[in-house]
């Protein structure tokens, strides 16, 4: 037991910071309805600014901390409140897109300014140790713990005593109370975002000495707060804080017990998501998940092109695609890459835009597809078969996370997939059945020598990717023309009506999820074969975020054109602009994803007018007739 105590103490100190971050997350989620995937990015901004003031500009750390907590935190809170207000009317997928955009934006800017590698973040709290009850505790740990408990306590007090606080607590318990409390909803929301953002900044500064300064790491670390928030069921503030403590202790105990079992040590960052999964599994399912979501606005018209124009446009595009190798020469490789990306975007678009389900682990699916293809090819399986089987392997894997999440609301699926992506990357990427210790696996290109083509050339592989993309388009359009397509469209308009007429809503969601996972897995085989070697670094969970952000740039329809456009933006354009640093693309993708989310669903006014008309009509007919019940 005594040997465990130091780990428990360290865990409590670290966990109290997770708890703080989680409190901020829950307060903003409940008051604005926006689940902020950018919460960790805000923490990173705080840590970088603190670093800049203290280490680069040599300010005393208490001054730097005060500036961060009293100026930066509230400022970022106000900015985020404005963003959240702009996102209020858009669909759930777009809310996720926008906050993911924030992550990309922050990661790009910090990496551009401070470099991509992790910076040393010297501890600023005193490191002397004291012995308490036989355990050596560092002053930093003690101060962190005391600080967190004081702040959490102050927060609880605020919620009990002040008017805005009481209103906020009411709204956290039941968001429908917003506006009924006598305190302006805008004030409640703004206060919540200021609190949430300041807590994020504080947790970033407190965590950075433990992790080093690195946006991705910090984003991931504050992601621990997701697990904590899950323990509090995204509602209970005390349970959320306790959840943070629990996760902190759990992670430190994992370190203690891992010893020579390496995968246990690797499991550490995945722990919060294991917690999240358990919570999902134990949660009582909603009768119909997301029944109350805003309905999709009525699009003004369908395709303005006549069928003849469409046919000739498609033919022209096909001709260009076929002669492209002779037009672009050696750059054809990046076009092949663009087509593979376009196939992935088809898969992701099918899932997100038709069924409203957000996947934040598509890069993980692609990675599994790539490594499975590599292993199958190594075992002598024919190329096409290997790619198809790789697609099939991903399906059950995808369903494992989708099934528990789907019973609850859509945001849980986004969370669960993010967690799954992180889990996959940290626990399984470097294992022999995936990329192996070196993080690389050979995925040879097909040997199509029987066609009389040079099998190894970039050009012939470009044609392979073209055919694959066309086949994938065929699958997507096929699915949408079937009954499933109609059910999906209906699901987007009114899940409630669909279910009360006997349709199996979750089965519809699972089917489209399965098709999407299959396409992502098969695309994985192609992506591995692009360069002949698949390396784990290309499929990080961060790539999943980028995929979603780029997907959102080209509207909310699934189709060949938006998928190709997204593929070009992600894979072709950067290859032509080699003088521009990669971070700029991350920044542009992030910023445009935020803008795309804000301007989406523009025909909202139409929907409101329909609702308003109906409400007026309801009022007109309901009151006077009641008097007529008892007729003379």
């Amino acid at each position, binding site marked *: 037991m005594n040997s465990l105590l130091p780990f428990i103490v360290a865990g409590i100190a670290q966990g109290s910071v997770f708890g703080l971050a989680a409190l901020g997350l829950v307060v903003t989620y409940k008051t604005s309805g926006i689940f902020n995937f950018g919460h960790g990015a805000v923490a990173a901004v705080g840590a970088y600014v603190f670093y800049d003031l203290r280490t680069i500009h040599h300010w005393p750390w208490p001054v730097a901390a005060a500036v961060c907590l009293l100026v930066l935190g509230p400022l970022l809170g106000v900015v985020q409140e404005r963003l959240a207000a702009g996102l209020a009317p858009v669909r759930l997928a777009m809310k996720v897109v926008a906050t993911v955009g924030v992550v990309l934006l922050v990661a790009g800017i910090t990496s551009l300014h401070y470099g991509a590698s992790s910076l040393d973040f010297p501890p600023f709290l005193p490191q002397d140790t004291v012995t308490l009850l036989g355990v050596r505790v560092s002053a930093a740990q003690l101060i962190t713990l005391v600080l967190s408990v004081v702040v959490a306590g102050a927060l609880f007090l605020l919620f009990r005593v002040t008017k805005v606080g009481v209103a906020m607590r009411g709204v956290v318990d039941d968001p429908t109370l917003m506006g009924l409390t006598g305190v302006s909803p805008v004030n409640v929301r703004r206060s919540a975002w200021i609190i949430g953002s300041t807590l994020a900044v504080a947790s970033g500064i407190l965590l950075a000495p433990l992790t080093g300064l690195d946006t991705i790491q910090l984003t991931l670390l504050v992601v621990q707060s997701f697990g904590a928030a899950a323990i509090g069921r995204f509602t209970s503030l005390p349970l959320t804080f306790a959840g943070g403590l629990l996760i902190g202790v759990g992670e430190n105990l994992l370190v203690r017990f891992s010893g020579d079992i390496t995968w246990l040590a690797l499991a550490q960052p995945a722990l919060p998501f294991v917690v999240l999964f358990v919570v999902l599994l134990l949660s009582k399912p909603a*009768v*119909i998940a997301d*029944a109350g979501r805003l*309905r*999709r606005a*009525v*699009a003004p018209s369908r395709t303005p092109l006549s069928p003849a124009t469409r046919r000739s446009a498609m033919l022209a595009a096909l001709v260009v695609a076929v002669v492209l190798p002779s037009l672009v020469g050696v750059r054809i490789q990046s076009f092949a890459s663009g087509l593979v990306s376009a196939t992935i975007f088809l898969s992701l678009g099918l899932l997100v835009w038709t069924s409203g389900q957000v996947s934040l682990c598509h890069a993980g699916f692609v990675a599994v597809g790539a490594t499975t293809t590599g292993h199958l090819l190594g075992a002598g399986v024919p190329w096409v078969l290997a790619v198809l089987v790789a697609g099939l392997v991903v399906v059950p894997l995808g369903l494992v996370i989708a099934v528990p999440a789907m019973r609850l609301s859509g945001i849980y699926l986004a969370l669960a997939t993010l967690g799954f992506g992180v889990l996959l990357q940290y626990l399984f990427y470097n294992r022999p059945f995936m990329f192996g210790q070196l993080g690389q696996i050979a995925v040879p290109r097909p040997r199509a020598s029987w066609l009389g083509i040079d099998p190894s050339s970039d050009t012939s592989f470009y044609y392979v990717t073209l055919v694959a993309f066309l086949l994938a388009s065929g699958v997507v359009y096929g699915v949408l023309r*079937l*009954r*499933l397509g*109609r*059910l999906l*469209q*209906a699901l*987007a*308009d*009114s899940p*409630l*009506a*669909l*279910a*009360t*007429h*006997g*349709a*199996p*809503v979750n*089965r*519809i969601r699972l*089917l489209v999820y399965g098709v999407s996972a299959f396409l992502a897995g098969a695309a994985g085989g192609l992506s591995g074969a692009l360069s002949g070697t698949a390396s784990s670094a290309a499929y990080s969970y961060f790539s999943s975020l980028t995929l979603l952000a780029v997907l959102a740039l080209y509207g909310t329809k699934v189709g060949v054109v938006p998928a190709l456009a997204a593929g070009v933006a992600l894979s072709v354009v950067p290859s032509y602009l080699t003088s521009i640093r990669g971070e700029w693309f991350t920044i542009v993708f992030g910023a445009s994803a935020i803008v795309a989310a804000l301007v989406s669903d523009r025909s909202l006014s*139409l*929907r409101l007018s*329909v*609702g308003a*008309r*109906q409400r007026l*009509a*309801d009022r007109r*007919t*309901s*009151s006077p*007739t*009641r*008097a*007529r*019940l*008892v*007729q003379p």
Partner: protein
Amino acid sequence: MTALELEQVTVRFGSVVAVDALSLSAAEGQITALIGPNGAGKTTTFNACSGLLRPASGRVTLLGEDVSDLGPAARARKGLGRTFQRLELFDSMTVDENVGLGLESGLAGQSWLRCLTGNRKEAVRVAEAVEESLHTCDITDLAGRRAGELSTGQRRLVELARALAGGFPVLLLDEPSSGLDHEETTRFGQILRSVVTGGRSILLVEHDMDLVLSVCDYLHVLDFGVHVFEGTPAEVQASPVVRAAYLGEEVSESA
């Protein structure tokens, strides 16, 4: 046999009892109305019937079968259809697609394969059901229009047609006439009569008393979640209990 029966159904929202030990039944082949002032618990009762809410206690029996433990889709497949006070149409789709989905939803519930695609026989069935229900509701001319661009009155009829196409023997209609003008309401009543003449049963929540008194066979009156009266239209009109429930409401309104 009764079409739909509630026994001692209680629904709570936190500490508020929205529906208190409610028992009522809707007879087969009749139009039964559920009336009461705003907030009496009518829509809550409907939600408990269709499985959108799980009551704290009580039993729901549909066509002689206990469906208390089933979800909304399963109850629909057992024969219970419904419409919504706040219209729930597939706004981005055409009227005939909307109505067709009334039947296709249930067909999709049969198996994984049927969820993915239908066979030729089903396609014929759906086409026939669409034609018949559009005809019954007299909206055949709207078939190709988008549901989202129609007037409230037309949308009410589309929602009814969709429920009819589903072939549900028991229908719950939640304030189907709200948003309709006088003429539309009269026509709506005629359509409802023709539906029950065809052998179906309807449970109706409605504020328009002209409509209720002219088309219903039997009425249940709710007030504050409690069943206060039941009887024929004539009995309800004469009842002092009902008068009290409604007059109290009226006084506060005129104040």
